[in-house]
């Protein structure tokens, strides 16, 4: 049984159907990258997984529990699903350290001291031991995003969902964030929506290409980049190569 099983997800906003039947699964500690043009429902898919936007149809299973079942305690499940946002969404009134420790205190019920220690460890892991007492407004974009990752990691999630984690960053800051993500490879499952093709190619176990609310094609990076079977995939990768430079 896969760790995460997504079955035939549909989601509409008003009259627009954004997701038109998405199915895929993920194993423990696997890394998958979702690529595709903007507006194809990639972010919506991530938000459907942790029920921020509950899907209209279909099922999401994590560790043998059905998340789409309305009677499930979703707050308990969300601890197991980390989320890293494009625009960071750090808690603006809390220091970097408190940003990471607050979930441990309020959700995992750790005492202040333990939560603090754990938060310190996670911030060290992302290379921010010097910034623990700074507020989000005092951090660079790359530092903010690394706090965001540390915040997700601290909860010991089974999987972390990354929603375009580097899209809001200056080009010279992207590398730091991607390095942190690379260092997590094989330690926690990651489902990453990104336009960083170099990263996708080097790190992903599988690439999922989405367009128009459906999965057009998926496969290992080598196959997807070198010999995609679908015309749409070829076109997209060709466009991306001209946009971001071929690698």
């Amino acid at each position, binding site marked *: 049984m896969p760790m995460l099983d997504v079955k035939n997800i549909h989601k509409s906003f008003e009259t627009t159907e954004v997701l038109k039947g998405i199915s895929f699964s993920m194993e423990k500690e696997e890394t998958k990258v979702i690529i595709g043009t903007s507006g194809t429902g990639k972010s919506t898919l991530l938000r459907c997984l942790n029920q921020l936007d509950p899907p209209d149809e279909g099922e999401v299973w994590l560790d043998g529990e059905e998340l789409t079942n309305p009677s499930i305690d979703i*707050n308990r499940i969300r*601890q197991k699903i980390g989320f890293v946002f494009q*625009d960071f969404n750090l808690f603006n009134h809390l220091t970097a350290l408190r940003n990471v420790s607050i979930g441990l205190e309020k959700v995992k019920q750790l005492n202040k001291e333990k939560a603090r220690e754990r938060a310190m460890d996670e911030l060290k892991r992302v290379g921010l031991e010097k910034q623990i007492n700074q*507020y989000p*407004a005092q951090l660079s974009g790359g530092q903010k995003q690394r706090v965001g990752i540390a915040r997700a990691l601290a*909860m010991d999630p089974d999987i972390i969902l990354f929603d375009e984690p580097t899209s809001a960053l200056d080009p010279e800051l992207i590398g730091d964030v991607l390095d942190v993500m690379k260092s997590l490879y094989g330690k926690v499952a990651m489902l990453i929506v990104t336009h960083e093709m170099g990263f996708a190619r080097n790190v992903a176990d599988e690439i999922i290409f989405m367009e128009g609310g459906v999965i057009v094609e998926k496969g290992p990076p080598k196959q997807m980049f070198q010999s995609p079977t679908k015309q749409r995939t070829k076109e997209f990768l060709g466009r991306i190569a001209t946009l971001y430079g071929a690698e």
Partner: protein
Amino acid sequence: MATSMFFEFLLDSLPKLLDGLQVTFLLTIVAILAGFLIGVTLALGRIYGNKIISGICIGFIEVIRGTPLLVQLFIIYFGLASIGLVFSPIQAALFGLSLNSSAYQAEYLRGSIQAIPSGQMVAARTLGMTKIQSIGTIVLPQALRISIPAWSNELIYLFKYTSIAYLIQVRELTAEGQIIASRNFRYVEIYLIIALIYLIFTFIISEIVDRAEKRFHVPGLGVPKRASWLRNT
């Protein structure tokens, strides 16, 4: 000597005025605190409540804001007495001022809550916090910080508006002044003294709130401070 006569008059009046000032403070402090608690509840109910709760909160706020404070005090003091609910003047004033302030505080706070980016709530929920936890630990602490300037206005208004309680026989500062003046007809002097007392304490209150704002300031949250009169910052 006009000046020495004035000071003699000031010294004679002062004990009574200070008695009145105490009542003014009592009204202000109780109304701002009770108004705060009710106001937070109203703001949260208005934003996060279901249609019924939200509707009740909006209705209450609009009725309070849409009617004069004096009329509200008259209704509580005279109106309710006529149906058997008798309050002492001070009770009626505390009750009326608290309710009145709560509506305004609710609206200030609502503005602040709505100014907090929705991503803050989303991020909190993503960690597994309940809606109530998210509001309590993430949204409200930020909203309260950015409400401090508006809240300090409310405190200063309230401090002065307590004088209206004089019209339902509460012996606060203005009432004491009125009583003194009606005995010796020195209206100009007494009202100047009273105005000065209000002015001094308004200034002190605004300085205290200013310091509180600095104390709770978080980089990147809220508006930059205005320069204080007392400090060159």
